[in-house]
């Protein structure tokens, strides 16, 4: 059977949502959920290849949890950062669009990286072209040094995502 991994990941995600919605440990309810989930997988399983790069190993699982924690911390930092900028009477911003190189290939990993960068302090994805991300940065630093922004913005997320996606 082709695309088995995508189907498995899709199955896990759909079942997780079913459990969250019903909020119960009743096995009967789980079995009811199994029917629509299997129908959805039968229809969309072959075309949903977005999960094909996921590594289904214990290491990938542990890094996924670590990623969620890392991302939550970045989100909290970003909110405090934005609030401080907004209430500061001087409005300390130096906006600009810069280029950041990424090494990730899998489409899902890139989507997660772009979403994460958007939700972290002062950075926002404007466009993706081939291997470059164009990032709108609210407080541009270190001009003339193309390596440093990549380190500051993307590297933390990339290093974790490399362990989850191929």
């Amino acid at each position, binding site marked *: 059977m082709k695309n088995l991994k995508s189907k498995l990941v899709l199955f896990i995600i759909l079942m997780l*949502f079913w*459990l*969250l*919605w*019903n*909020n119960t440990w009743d096995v009967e309810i789980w079995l009811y959920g199994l029917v629509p989930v299997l129908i959805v997988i039968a229809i969309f399983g072959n075309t949903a290849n977005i999960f094909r790069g996921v590594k289904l190993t214990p290491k990938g699982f542990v890094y996924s949890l670590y990623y969620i924690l890392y991302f939550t911390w970045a*989100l*909290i930092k*970003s*909110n405090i950062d*934005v*609030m401080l*900028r*907004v*209430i500061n009477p001087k*409005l300390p*911003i*130096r*906006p*600009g*669009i*810069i*280029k950041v190189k990424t090494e990730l290939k899998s489409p899902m990993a890139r989507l997660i990286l*772009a*979403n994460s960068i*958007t*939700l972290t302090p*002062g950075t*926002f*994805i*404007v*466009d993706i*072209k081939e291997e470059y991300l*164009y990032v*709108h940065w*609210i407080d*541009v630093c270190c*001009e003339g040094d193309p390596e440093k922004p990549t380190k500051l913005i993307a590297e933390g997320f990339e290093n974790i995502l490399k362990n989850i996606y191929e």
Partner: protein
Amino acid sequence: MEYLELIGAIMVLLGAVVLLLAGIGLLRMPDSYNRIQVGTKASTGGVALILLGMALIIPSWFGKLFTILIFVMLTNPISSHVLMRAAHKAGHPMTDKTVVDALKKDEEDQKNKDNGTV
């Protein structure tokens, strides 16, 4: 149980404050790009705080509220990204404080290259 409710109420209040600051930020920022930045981050954080606070007040809603939170976190950056990209493609002017615009430069380079080869 009452402690949970108190913590939940404080979280909802904090979320409301974050959203209020996002509104002030929308008024204070000089151009649409910075407005989108502030709006996206603060609204995601504020909604997250409010939903988690509600989940603490009424624990049986946790699953549904958490699902809403996941969808907000996945879709909010994407929609804002599309808005910002559209603004940039339409040539919306950036504020005078802007330091560098690599995307515009690259697009112009590409255009010059295409014109040169044709």
